């Protein structure tokens, strides 16, 4: 019995030792009165680290009493790492969230409301600012945003002797061109857009449909507009085959297929510009993506948010506002061709447009008139996967588009709403 007691003491002592080490907290202000702000981000990973460093330097020069400690993670690990840190009360003071994850963090109370009264956000594009508001309160300061355009291989259009796409094109125009390009060879395809939930909500909007009703109280997955749009998406693959099947892709990504000169048109994000400019061996340009009955294109945005548990929220907000709204940071971003800065002043716009290819960068700005967003649901990621499982059956031909969306509507409405 006594031995057991000693054993227990030994175990407890070790626990206490481990526990005590956590107690020593780091002082927020160092002896020189410098405030340290921890900043975690993913979007500078893979090529824009230096640009971010330059922004941080510019901020620190303006605010000598604030020191930003930047930490950059790859996108694949980022959200797992972030969740674990937040759970372990080790959340960074400022961190980056994309619009897809913003809602979940805000709803869970993990991020703080930002008092914008003292911050200069006059330059910030209105749509992006409101995208990170909840009931009119600001919970994130957007830094950059992006949309999706139609990127086309000029050489293939020349080979097929057809005219380049224009901003007024519809799906019908696109199909005619895609068929002409597909005819160039058995391993050449006309157009690529993935058939998945993230593409679905936009495409149905192009046909006047939507995934949910206006006040987001019910799903409307199997509306006539939606079914028609899905049929058109699938016909591109299965009937006209101007879009390659998974097998025809042969494990290649859509970007690689385009860069290999085997794809006439690709509907993809403006974040592809850098990669295409560096790697394409042919001429290419962009235009606003075609609509069905109307235009619609994606809106993506990243924002800086402030941890609810941060002890330096004021300094953190100052930093976030600088990255978001200052022309200085926006110019650094634009000159580095790092997506579209939200502080779209005339100078920033000029700097962004000056970098070519693509020549027709105006199309990026024209697309801003047609932005659509996915339903703002905390569990949208799950809804997306569930819908995908039904859409996949329609692609495989085991269900018609109508059946797939009927079943998806019943299942998803029951699981997430009722």
């Amino acid at each position, binding site marked *: 019995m006594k*031995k057991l007691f*000693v*054993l227990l003491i*030994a*175990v407890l002592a*070790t626990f206490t030792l481990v526990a005590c080490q956590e107690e020593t907290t780091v002082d927020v202000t160092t002896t020189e009165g410098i405030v340290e702000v921890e900043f975690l981000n993913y979007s500078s990973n893979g090529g824009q680290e230096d640009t971010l460093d330059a922004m941080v330097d510019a901020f620190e020069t303006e605010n000598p009493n604030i020191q930003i400690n930047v930490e950059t993670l790859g996108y694949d690990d980022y959200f*797992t790492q972030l*969740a*674990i840190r*937040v*759970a372990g009360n080790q959340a960074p003071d400022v961190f980056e969230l994309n619009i897809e994850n913003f809602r*979940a*963090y805000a709803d*869970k*109370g*993990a991020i703080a409301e930002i008092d914008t009264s003292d911050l200069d956000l006059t330059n910030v594009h209105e749509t992006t600012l409101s995208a990170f508001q909840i009931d009119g309160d600001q919970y994130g300061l957007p830094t950059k945003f992006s949309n999706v355009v139609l990127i086309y291989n000029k050489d293939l259009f020349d080979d097929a002797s057809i005219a380049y796409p224009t901003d007024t094109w519809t799906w019908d125009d696109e199909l005619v061109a895609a068929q002409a390009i597909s005819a160039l060879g058995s391993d050449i395809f006309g157009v690529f857009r993935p058939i998945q939930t993230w593409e679905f909500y936009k495409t149905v909007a192009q046909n006047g449909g939507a995934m949910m009703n206006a006040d987001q109280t019910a799903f409307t997955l199997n509306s006539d507009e939606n079914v028609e749009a899905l049929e058109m998406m699938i016909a591109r693959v299965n009937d006209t085959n101007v879009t390659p099947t*998974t*097998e*025809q*892709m*042969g*494990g290649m990504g859509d970007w690689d297929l385009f860069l290999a000169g085997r794809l006439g048109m690709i509907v993809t994000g403006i974040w592809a510009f850098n990669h295409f400019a560096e790697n394409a061996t042919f001429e290419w340009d962009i235009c606003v993506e075609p609509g069905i009955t109307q235009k619609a294109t994606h809106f993506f945005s990243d924002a800086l948010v402030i941890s609810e548990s941060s002890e330096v929220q004021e300094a953190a907000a100052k930093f976030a506002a600088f990255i978001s709204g200052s022309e200085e940071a926006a110019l650094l971003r634009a000159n580095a061709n790092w997506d579209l800065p939200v502080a779209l002043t005339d100078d920033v716009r000029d700097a962004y447009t000056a970098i070519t290819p693509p020549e027709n960068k105006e199309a990026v700005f024209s697309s801003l008139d047609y932005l659509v967003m996915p339903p703002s649901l905390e*569990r949208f*990621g*799950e809804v997306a996967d569930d819908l995908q*499982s039904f859409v*996949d*059956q329609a692609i*495989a031909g*085991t269900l018609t588009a109508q059946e797939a969306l009927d079943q998806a509507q019943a299942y998803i409405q029951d*699981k997430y709403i009722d």
Partner: protein
Amino acid sequence: MNKLQKNIGFYIILFLVPCILGYVVFSLLPMFSALYLSFTDWDIIGGTPDLIGIKNYVDIFTDKEFSRVLLNTFKFIGLYIPSIMFMSFLVANLFNSKVKGVGGFRVLLFIPVLTSWVAGSIIWRSALNGQYGIVNNLLSLIGIDGPGWLTDTSWSMVSIVMVSLWKDIGFFSLIIFGGLRGIDKTYYEAAQIDGANRFQMMRKITLPLVSPTLFFVLITTIINSFQLFPQVMVMTGGGPLGSTQVLVERIYIYGFRYFRMGYASAYAVILLAIIVFVTLMQMLLQKKWVFYE
């Protein structure tokens, strides 16, 4: 007797403390946490978990996804277990024969065992591509139009099983080979004198005497089957159309993709219950066919 010898039990326990502590902190604690979390709606970022009773379990059992996942797991077991048992036994007998060059063969078969699951799966993913993969290219040489191994629902699980066999056969045949080597040669000599043929020797001597090893292999492979994960994650990601979704894959998706730790924990507890049940059943049934000398 000095003091140390007198208190030897105490010192043994004392020196075991670091080890026990490691077990408690890294195994027991997480296990009991998972059990607790399975009754909560913990989503990592939302702070303190709320107790929601058995809702997670009810949700799992009422979602048709669960029966699909179980069916996929049993499909894997049904294809994999008989194949691995039979083939490993066959290969082990080959190892045991006095054929020239059998040592080299043993090494070759063991190489996949040393390969990491992820690396192996990536190679097989491209080899099994329906359009450009080397497997279908070779098949077309002999006039067979190969299927979309990983994109066709009727072949996806078969492909997973084939790759699992490729990976595991070296290991389990080596273990059975060890069992075969342990059989006393005199049994065979006696049987030969009595005029037994090879089939009779296999049935009456080899199988009963190697049965404890076969039992070990069976338990291990079944537990492994329920824990099927890396090959699925890398090769198919659970698709196409959920045809390769299995228990551990679901745990991973719910835990680290949707961050629904409570739900994922409930799945994990169910997995544990299944494995414990199946293993207990095997322990009971072993009396019927396993012989210990």
